[in-house]
């Protein structure tokens, strides 16, 4: 092969490659860390030790607070949506579980986030699963197949259950006891930019006092145990609005 031919080939190659490159420029992907903090009104939640008051003034302590967070969708300022396929089990007792990382987000400017408290119906009917959805995590029911979306347990003097405990185990993916709740939070001001050179952090706050507040005020003497479909949607309706973006961070 002559020298000229070789050079020609090289030039053509470069030309083809560079035009191809300009057509399929890879979308850059980035990460977002969501840092979740649990509050009881103005105070940080601490398990067992501190007494809080519900809206009726009844005192209580919390011994366990855990829930599923899933189907995170980020909406960018052009209206395009990115959905994360991951499921997260957030547990007050497990510090690592309160920092969740959303991966594979196209770089861009985002205006809102939405997510499910709980697990979508498809994944309640998908058989054996692993990771956050492993039944070994103790968030799975067999009296009626499905995930427990949220567990809140503790003590309240007003409770009439043995040992004055209260326990709310909320689940159910089908009507009329559907407890899947979606939360949408708009980023104020300019939105958040997600770039690939640094991992952004979104501070979320979940206030457990909201679980006792309207739509239905929870009275421990009347409702101390929810472990099946009875009253489950009542509690789910209450916690639907417990999340806010933690502005002072």
């Amino acid at each position, binding site marked *: 092969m002559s020298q000229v031919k070789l050079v020609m080939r090289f030039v053509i190659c470069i030309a083809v490659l560079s035009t191809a490159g300009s057509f399929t420029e890879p979308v850059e992907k980035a990460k977002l860390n969501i840092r979740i903090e649990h509050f009881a009104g103005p105070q940080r939640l601490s398990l067992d030790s501190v007494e809080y008051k519900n809206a009726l003034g009844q005192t209580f302590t919390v011994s366990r607070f855990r829930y599923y967070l899933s189907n995170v969708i980020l909406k960018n300022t052009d209206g395009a949506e990115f959905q994360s396929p991951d499921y997260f089990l957030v547990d007050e007792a497990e510090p690592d579980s309160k920092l969740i990382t959303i991966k594979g987000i196209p770089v861009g400017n985002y205006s809102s986030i939405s997510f499910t408290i709980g697990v979508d119906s498809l994944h309640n009917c998908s*058989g*054996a699963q692993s990771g956050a959805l492993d039944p070994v995590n103790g968030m799975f029911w*067999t009296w*009626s197949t499905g995930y427990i979306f949220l567990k809140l347990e503790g003590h309240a003097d007003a409770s009439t259950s043995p040992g004055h405990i209260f326990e709310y185990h909320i689940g159910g993916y089908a009507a009329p006891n559907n407890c899947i709740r979606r939360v949408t939070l708009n980023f104020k001001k300019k939105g958040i930019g997600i770039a690939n050179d640094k991992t952004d952090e979104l501070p979320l706050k979940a206030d457990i006092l909201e679980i006792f507040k309207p739509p239905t005020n929870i009275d421990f003497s009347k409702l101390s145990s929810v472990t099946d479909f009875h009253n489950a949607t009542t509690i789910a309706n209450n916690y639907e609005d417990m999340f806010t973006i933690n502005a002072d961070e």
Partner: protein
Amino acid sequence: MKLKFVYLFFFGMALYLGLNSFVENNPYFIITTKDVEVKVPAGFPKPVYDFKENKVTPEGFVLGRKLFYDPILSADSSVSCAFCHQRIAAFAHIDHTLSHGINGLIGNRNVPPLQNLIWQQNFMWDGAINHLEVQPLAPLTNSQEMGESLKHTLEKLQRNKTYVDDFYAVFKDTAITSENLLKALAQFTSLMISANSKFDKYQRGEEEFTEHELSGLKLFRAHCENCHKEPLFTDNTFRNIGIKPDTALRDSGRIKLTGVVDDYMKFKVPGLRNVAMTYPYMHDGRFRTLQQVLKHYADGVFYTNYDKSIEKNVGLTNQEQSDIITFLKTLTDEQFLHDRRFADPNFR
């Protein structure tokens, strides 16, 4: 004299070793790729169970079988799946009205047969379970049954070197996870397919029905078919057939799951294949014989809010009842009941 004993000893040893290697290589227990092919019988619908997520392999099936017959899955290592689900009864439990679990505890439901599970949308008498794979979690974690927590079970299995090897061979994972445990069990139970009864042979034109069987089939199609739909003999719905709740068990059926008033005393329509082998009958095993079942339908003493379509059974004559029973007996599938693949591998 002494020599005789020595001979006897050696003869015994030889017999033992011979038997042992006979068992190891016994074709009765060997599972080949052909043995685990899933064949949808002619006329059957598409299975509900999705094998794409859990492809059955000979090794996976053998592991599932081992687990099914192993009491290691229960807290005090006394109760295996097979303790309640007996092969000779199409994996129901002959003669116990209610299930018996560890420490002699009595459960609150009659043990149903295990067959044609891959066509079922819901499991248990009230449909509490929505997927074949997660079904074993109920007996594994129910204190009235196997009284064991899932985590502890996995730890027990993980400590057992043979199981670690078995699981690795199937799933290429040295950690025994709940997902793999459940999938292995499903590889075994999903192949429990019964579709070769006399009725099936009659349908395929391979065997003739007697006069009474034929009369029974006609009556069945007129009176029972709307719920016990062929070829699975269930339409997979939940119905109330006017059974009065037992005052001690207080089992009110599907309403316990849904809270919907209309679901009071509704139970899953059971598939009737091998029904002659699965006595006693109904969710609480209240009827010991098929005669008693037919009498319930024919007598017309129905408890509240029942499905009106059972009214057409009222007044079935003794002869008609007897013909229906004769027909029901043609649903016994000897091939399934004696299928070597499902035999207890410890019974060598």
